[in-house]
Structures are given as structure tokens and as C-alpha cells.
């Protein structure tokens, strides 16, 4: 039960490099528009491909695109991890 609740609050910035997850929702509307336009939308699988020094910015692979974003922006993407 507790574990489920923690998962509900998992955001993309918490994922390690190589981590995979499904996008649940994007909390910030303004950022969500930009992200959705670039192919990063709820329901898609996202993979953290690499991170810069200090884990910021991060680069994610989603619907065939590689997108760099800052940690602060990744924090507004709620995700559900996928186990391989």
C-alpha cells in the first residue's frame, strides 16, 4: 500500500540513467504543451538516455525523439516505472 502511494508521486527527475517509465501526466500546463508538441505525452514510454554533469539537464528518449530538459522541468512529469 505505502509503496503504491510512493509510486503515485514518482516524477521523471527521480529516474536513474537507463530507467524506463510510462508517462502518467504532466503537471505544469505550460510545460506540458511544449513537451506534448515534441512527442512527450501521457501513455508514451520514456527512457532516461543520459544525464549531464550533476544530473541536470537530462536527455530522454520518447516516441523516437531524444529530448533534453532540465531537472526542474522533469519534476513536473509524473511517471510509472516499468520493470524490464
Amino acid at each position, binding site marked *: 500500500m505505502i509503496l503504491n502511494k510512493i509510486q503515485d508521486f514518482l516524477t521523471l527527475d527521480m529516474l536513474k540513467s537507463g530507467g524506463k517509465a510510462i508517462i502518467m501526466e504532466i503537471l505544469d*500546463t*505550460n*510545460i*506540458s*504543451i*511544449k*513537451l*506534448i*508538441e*515534441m*512527442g512527450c*505525452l*501521457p501513455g508514451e514510454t520514456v527512457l532516461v*538516455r*543520459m544525464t*549531464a*554533469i*550533476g544530473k*541536470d*539537464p537530462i*536527455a530522454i528518449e520518447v*516516441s*523516437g*525523439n*531524444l*529530448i*533534453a*530538459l*532540465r531537472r526542474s*522541468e522533469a519534476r513536473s512529469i509524473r511517471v510509472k516505472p516499468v520493470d524490464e
Partner: protein
Amino acid sequence: MSKGIKIALIGNPNTGKSTLFNALTGLKQKTGNFPGVTIEKSTGHFTLEDGTIVEITDLPGSYSLFPKSLDETIPFKVLIDPAHPQRPDLVLFIADASNLKRNLVLLSQLIDLKVPIILALNMIDQAKAKGVQIDITCMEEKFGMPIVPISARKNIGIDNLLHQISLGGKVSAQSFTFDGQTEIEDLRLLQTSLGVTTRYNALLHLHHGFTNKTTKPDHKAALDKFRSNNLFDSGTRQRDDLLNRYKLISAILSGCIKEADTSAFKRRQEKIDAILTHKFWGYIIFFAVLFLIFQSLFSLADYPMKAIIASFNWLSERLEQAIPGGALNDLVSNGILPGLSGILVFIPQIAFLSMFIAIMEDTGYLARVAFIMDRTMRRFGLNGKSVVPLISGTACAVPAIMATRNIENRKSRLITILVTPLMSCSARLPVYILLVGLAVPNRTVLGIFNLQGLALMGLYVLGFVAAIAAATVFKILIKSKIKQYFILELPVYRLPNLNTVAITVVNKVKAFLFQAGKIIVAISIILWFLASYGPPGAFRKVEEKYAAIKPVDEAQKHSLALSEKTEKLQNSFAGDLGKAIEPVIRPLGFDWKIGIALITSFAAREVFVGTISTLYGLEGEGSDFNQLRANMLKSRDPVTHRKIYSFATIVSLLIFYAFAMQCMSTLAVTYKETASLKWTMVQLFYMTGAAYVFSLLIYQLLPVATRLF
């Protein structure tokens, strides 16, 4: 008289839009700005088989018609404003064949505006190589428009595309508009009161309306009424609109496209990324690349630059002999020609820098640089993409400021433009060398370090620190309405397309020549006038004085000519200006002769050396620094008899040259790039203000400090 049509080229970023534009138009291109904004506009021409002349506009790459940055408002404005000069008869939509789902979201918005469209599926060769299968007939049916698979790089399918252009495209009957049933009536009413052709057009007005100053009052009232009646929340609407489009497009595409397993392709890309964005090697590689750019700006560009200067000197000597002496001769050989050479001399550096940046951008590396440098640059209100302009500024601020075009984030771009001229450019170098030689002994310390070299390096560090400090201040001062974020696509690595690179270089050089060049020539002529004319009374006295002396031999004739030149400059308008500003610059330790040099430096900083040489009775730039330094050190204040070039004065002068904005070329480029007199003036005054304050502090406090220690 053959008829002409207008085409707009629209598509996502990184779809090969510029490559197609170049393939269609070649060098028949013009760059300028869109009316009222600083976004670069490229238009070009080509002729169809039937003789129709096509004017094509390359619109900024954009992911949707919703505006987030200034660039992205342009496709919308061009498309919906019936009075817009670039309003197209036909939209040429370009999409990356391997990434259709995302690309077609923007297309679906254009479809809802009911404009005639042709869809070009670019990089079809790569999609095929990856194993993606696209059923073109199925797509044409579903999207209701002609579709042409092409490869702009390899010139595949271009003939077919031209044929389709001559057929005029098609208005698709499809609709992707997503609006609630209850408001359709309201939306229709709005559509009528705005006088637009589609509901989606009216909807886009609702999203854009607040930014549009030209909105008519009755239109504004209609928009406001709709907004309040339907609790219009632009953000959520945009999000839902996009999500709905994705859903519809996915459904269509799944029937027409067979996706392939691209993991082999991806693995190769990942391997390159693993090296280029490596937490250690990534930086080493980046600094190596910078070193290469830096080297070529300094050394490689040096040969053509010297050749340009030499040929202009030769030309002006020839002209001086060819046309009869007098004002016209002097204007041409000392006013216009140096002005022209002052512009042309920048071309090698601009060409080299824009070549490197075009290659970095075309290969996808520039986006990786932004990725690895963003964290560091962010603290100072800059972003990852500010690095290259800043470093290039150590060669010359002019091409560096032109290189800020890649920064999408407006605030970061503006800050980068404002602070780049603080980086020590190569024009400061002769001034630094002359002055450091005066103040710092040529001695070796700690075994290997040359003291003068250390001082010179210190000045470069000072420039960098000043740029970062200024950026931090601007970060706080500049308010931005548009939310700043750093969401950046890292495009697929590709080999650079030499054609695209070459055309970019030519266009950058052309843009500089014709836009900044005009201002530079104009100011050069003004400076020439100030330095070669003076109030008639004083000037005639000098001329009469020298006319009266009959030289005994050639040597004396030469030295007389030199001292006449010196006295004329002292009595010119520039000399008067120098004397006029003396009370202002006295507290910095500068006399009126330095004042003259400060004024003429506005043509280019290195002119300081030439002016000082003339003032101290030596021949122009060619004279040797040691003789000049000796003359400078001998000079004393006529009233106080104190040395003019005291240590404090020299340091103060160095600080002044490090900070002050004394370069008309940079100002001209800043004005061109920001399209704002306000920010150009901000740059002029903040830099010169800082120069004044710090030189004042140094000159006043240095003697106190040396007495204390």
C-alpha cells in the same frame, strides 16, 4: 510578364527544412527580418517549367501553431493575416519520414485552416534504410493532399515536388478540430465577427489574441465575449487540442505505415552520444573543438585579413596618386576606403565562424554542446547555447553576436548579445600590447612566466569575469513575460551537408555586408571628417605655418610633413572634441591627446595605436612600438609637469579599453540583431559607464594603495 506565386515552407525543426529551401532556391536568397520582429526571414526564388516564378519563404521551424516563443508566432501570423506580405498561395509542408506522428500534428493544424498544402516526406532514403514502410497512396487518401517522398540532401524527388507545386496543392477535406458541442455555435458566431474562413482560425485567434496588438476593437470585444461565455482556458485547451490530434493521427498512420525495428540505428547513435556527452571526455572534446575554432579565427583568418588590409592600403595609395589632391582624394583614400576595409576585414572571421557553427548545427553537435554546458551557463542567465558566441567574442564580437541566432530563448539570447563585447576581442590586442609594454617590465618570474604575458592573460580573464558578472546583473534586471525553459530536441547525428554549410556562410557574410556595413561606412566618414578638418582659423594657421617653411632636403621635408600632420590632428574637430572631453576624462588620468584617441577608437579599437602614433609625431601603424613608447613616456603635463603616462594612468587606460563599448561595428550588429535602439544604447552605456567607474576607481585609489603598501 509571367505570373508568380508565393509559397510558405513550414515544418518541425530538424526536418531538413533549410536543406530543401537551399535545394530549391540555391543562392537566389534574401535574408531580412519579419516586420516588427527580430526573427530572421529567408525568402528565395525559383522558376517552374511553365515559367511561373515562385517566391518561397522559409518560416521558422515550429512544432505547432500555438505560440510559445516569438519565432513560433510567425507561421500563424503569416498564414491567417490576409494583409501579410508573405501570405502564401500554397503551403509546402516538410516532414521527417521517420518521425511522422509528431511532424503531422502541425500539418493537421494547417489542414484545419483550409489552406492548399503539399506534403513532402523528407529523408525518405533514411526511413527506407531503417525499414519504415510508408504507403503513400493510403496517406494521400487519408490526408487528402498530394504527398511527395523526397530526400533534399540527395536531391531525390525534387522534380516530382516541382511538378506538384505547379499543380497548386490541395485543400484537404479532413478535419482535426476538437471543440465541445456546446460552443460550436459560439465559435461560428466568432468566426463570422472576425471574418475568418474556418472555426479553427477563430480558435487560434482566441489563443493568440492577447499578443496581437493590431486586433481591431470590435474583434477584441467578440474574442473577450467568447472567452468569458465559455470559460476559455487557453493552456488546457491547447493541451487537449494537441492530445486529440495525436490520437487521430496515430489512428490514421497505423493503417498506412509499418514501423520498423530501429534499435540498430539507435545503438549507433547512442555510441556517439556516449562519447560526445561523456562527463569527462565530452568536455575535453568540446574544448578541443573550441580550440580549433579559436585557432582558425586567429591564425587562419589572419592571412585573408592581412591581404584585405594590404590591398586596401595599396588601393588608397594608388588613388592618392591617381586623382588630384584635395578634399575628394582625401575623402576617398582616408575616409571611404578605410571604412570599406574596416568592414571587409571582418569577412574572413565571420565566414570561418559561421562555417564552424553551421557544421556543428548540421551534424547535431551544437545541441549536445548546449546539453553539456547548460548547467554552468544557467547560473548567469545564459544557456548552453551561449558558450560558442562568448568564446568567439575573444576573436571578434561581430561574428560572435551574429552567432547568437541559434539561441531560441529570447532572454538568454539578449543577455548573450549584451555581454559578448566584454570578452577581449582581437582589436584590443594591439592596444593591450602597447600599454602593457609601457607599464609592465619584460621580466621572467618563477622561471617560466613572462610578466607581460601574465598581464595580458590577466586582461583576458578580466574580460571573461566582467562578461559573466554583467550577465548575472542582466539576469536579474531583464524581465521576461514568456516562461523560460530549456526543452531542446537533440537531433539525430548526421554528416554535414556541404551545400547547406556553404550557402549559410555566403548568406551570413552577405547579411553582415549589407546591413551592418552601411552603418560602419557612414560612421567612418564622420570620423574621417572630424579628424581631418578643424575650425577654419586654427587650421589655416597650421597650414600657413608649414607653407612658409622651405625644407632644405628630403629628410626635413618628411619630418615637416609628419609634424604638420600631428599639428593638424591636434587642431582638428577631433582634437577639439578631445580637449572638450578632457575635464570629463581628467579624473581617469587621461589628457586630451588620449581623448582624441578614445574618439577615433570608435572606428575600431586598434585605431588607438595609429592615432597615438600620429599624435606623438610618428608615422602611422607601421612605426615601431619601442620608439612610440619612449615618446609617450617622455611626455609631461604642460602645467603640472607630471608624467602623463604614470603607472596609474596606464592601468586605468587598460581597464577603460577592457570595458568600454568603443566599437561601432559591434553596435551596428547589435542593433541589427536586436532590432532595438534601446538595447543597443543599453549596451553602449552600461559598458562605457562601467569603464568610466572602474578606471576612475583605479586611477584614484591605485596611488593611495601603493603608498600604503
